């Protein structure tokens, strides 16, 4: 890694650009100032800025804004206007310091076109009122590590996507693209592309792409409105820990756990291979959205999934490389540390030389503050059960406690430690208001 102070400068430059709201057509000077204040608060937290005025509040919503308005999961995935408006309303009502982004809900018609089977979604495998859910399977066989390692894109296109996108099954028969290297080899390659099943697959891909293009053009108006109203989004890009790519949607949980014993070398080689792709994916989103925060959900490194020794060998080195790669590009790795991480906090402290954030789920926030406070920005930890099953008074009380515990080093962002697929108005309001009330430094 290069000199970290230079890296931090790049990160700060990107943050400053984001804070400025450059390119956003604000409704008024007041909303522009509000945007700059909110983004500034978050940035100050990332920077562990002692002069920060208060704890930012950042509820991490997925389907909650739509569910809370009585919009079904299916409607949210099929009607971008309804979804977009719900997100706008959420911001207006609860005035968070960072907004969630409706495109996370994804667009149902495109998934239908692709005959997507990696997830089931409302009306397609799960009830219409619910949110989409992952369909765990072995989408990569044990003997395919070498394919993934030697040519990731080839593996994706000709092996993995045919399995996860029913309409793209013919891609399995696509001749390798190397065949296009010159004449006369190009001919046979093109013949493969011209075969009817391949043509149908390409047609489906084009159609799904077009559907998403139209969808984002509709959704974009609401995204712009949210920003114009003064709310920054809590992420610009997203990627994953290399280990999680393989364990989530490639080999699957059970299979990969066994691979740790049966073919550890291949696992290591594969996760190493995916470092750069993940950096590229994260930076691309951040730049495209002019928002330096790259959301990284951490999955199988949580307490209970593997030992520290395994974590140290299989999980942490490549995750760290991804984080530093993002930082070198000026991005802020925003790790959503799912599950508990009490056994891993020391590792996280290692990244104190770059700007980054760890949003915790069920980690003991007192321990997190103790280990990480003053070193890296921490966030979250507030139990989702409080929001879903408790009272406003209780929520306010618990919020105050959380701020007292986690906020003393001034690098804390108040957040619920769970992505919100559901929510309650009174408790949500209490949560957001309590942040303003008790979060002043």
């Amino acid at each position, binding site marked *: 890694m290069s000199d970290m102070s230079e890296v931090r400068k790049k990160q700060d430059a990107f943050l400053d650009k984001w804070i400025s709201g450059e390119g956003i057509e604000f409704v008024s000077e007041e909303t522009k100032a509000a945007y700059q204040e909110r983004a500034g608060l978050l940035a100050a937290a990332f920077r562990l800025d002692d002069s920060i005025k208060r704890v930012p509040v950042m509820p991490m919503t997925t389907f909650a804004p739509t569910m809370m308005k009585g919009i079904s999961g299916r409607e949210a995935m099929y009607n971008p206007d309804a979804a977009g408006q719900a997100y706008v309303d959420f911001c207006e009502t609860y005035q968070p310091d960072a907004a969630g982004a409706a495109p996370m809900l994804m667009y149902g018609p495109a998934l239908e076109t692709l005959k997507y089977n990696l997830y089931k979604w409302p009306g397609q495998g799960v009830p219409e009122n619910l949110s989409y859910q992952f369909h765990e399977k072995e989408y990569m066989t044990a003997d395919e590590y070498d394919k993934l390692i030697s040519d990731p894109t080839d593996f994706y296109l000709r092996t993995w996507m045919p399995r996860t996108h029913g309409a793209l099954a013919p891609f399995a028969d696509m001749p390798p693209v190397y065949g296009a290297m010159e004449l006369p080899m190009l001919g046979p390659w093109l013949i493969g592309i011209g075969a009817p099943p391949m043509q149908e697959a390409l047609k489906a891909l084009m159609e799904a792409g077009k559907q998403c293009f139209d969808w984002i053009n509709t959704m974009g108006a609401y995204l712009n409105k949210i920003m114009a109203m003064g709310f920054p989004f809590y992420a610009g890009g997203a990627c994953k820990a290399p280990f999680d790519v393989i364990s989530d949607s490639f080999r699957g949980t059970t299979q990969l756990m066994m691979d*740790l*014993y049966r073919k550890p070398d291949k696992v290591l080689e594969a996760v190493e291979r995916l470092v750069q792709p993940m950096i590229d994916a994260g930076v691309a989103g951040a730049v495209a959205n002019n928002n330096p925060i790259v959301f990284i959900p951490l999955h199988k490194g949580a307490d209970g999934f*593997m030992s520290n020794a395994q974590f140290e060998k299989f999980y942490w080195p490549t995750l760290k490389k991804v984080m530093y790669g993002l930082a070198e590009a000026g991005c802020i790795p925003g790790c959503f540390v799912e599950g508990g991480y009490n056994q891993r906090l020391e590792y996280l402290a290692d990244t104190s030389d770059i700007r980054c954030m760890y949003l915790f789920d*069920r980690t003991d926030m007192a321990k997190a503050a103790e280990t990480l406070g003053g070193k890296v920005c921490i966030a979250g930890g507030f139990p989702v059960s409080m929001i879903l099953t408790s009272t406003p008074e209780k929520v306010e009380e618990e919020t105050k406690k959380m701020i007292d515990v986690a906020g003393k080093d001034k690098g804390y962002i108040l957040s619920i430690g769970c992505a919100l697929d559901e929510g309650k108005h009174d408790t949500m309001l209490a949560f957001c208001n309590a942040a303003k009330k008790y979060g002043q430094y």
Partner: protein
Amino acid sequence: MQELIDAIADMMEDKVLELTQKYLDEGKDPAEIFDAYQSAMEEIGRRFEANTYFVPELIMAGEMMKAGSELIKPHLKEDAAGDKSGKIGKYLIATIEGDIHDIGKNIVGMILDLNGFEVMDLGVDVPADKIIEAAKEFQPDIIGLSGLLTLAFDPMKAFVEKLTAEGLRDKFKVMIGGAQMDQQVCEYIGADAWVTDAVAGVNKSKEWLAA
């Protein structure tokens, strides 16, 4: 048999199967061999509680148990293989309606089985009525509900309410499990206990049966 127990507990897959085959070839008592597996599972459970072992080890243990069983079963007498007299209790498990995740439920079911429970697994996305129906039929000591997502909270609550409405609430212990379960949710749902890892669930279950 200690060598076999150690090999299993230490996750040496090849050695485990090799030793198992060797003992069978030598004419050792298949039931004893099977007991060695059981002992190893207990050791693995202790290491899991001690935070030395984690999910990979649980899964590997299950795989070795499965493979070993395949080798042993032909040597066991039919009645012995089917004998339920060793079971310490009955456990009905399901992922609640609306949630289609099975990984957690599968792991718990496997560990329960390894720990001597007779397990009936209803699968995923199971409506309350179906669980109650199965409970009446199977008469479990414990009904275990799994839910990976928060959307599981209300269906679980509805299940407990139905159970109560049918006057069955006191007949069964209800345990809930999943990543987002906590005391608050447990009270909200009206369950008897909540866990976020399989071994804790097994220990709680044994504790209930011992009472």
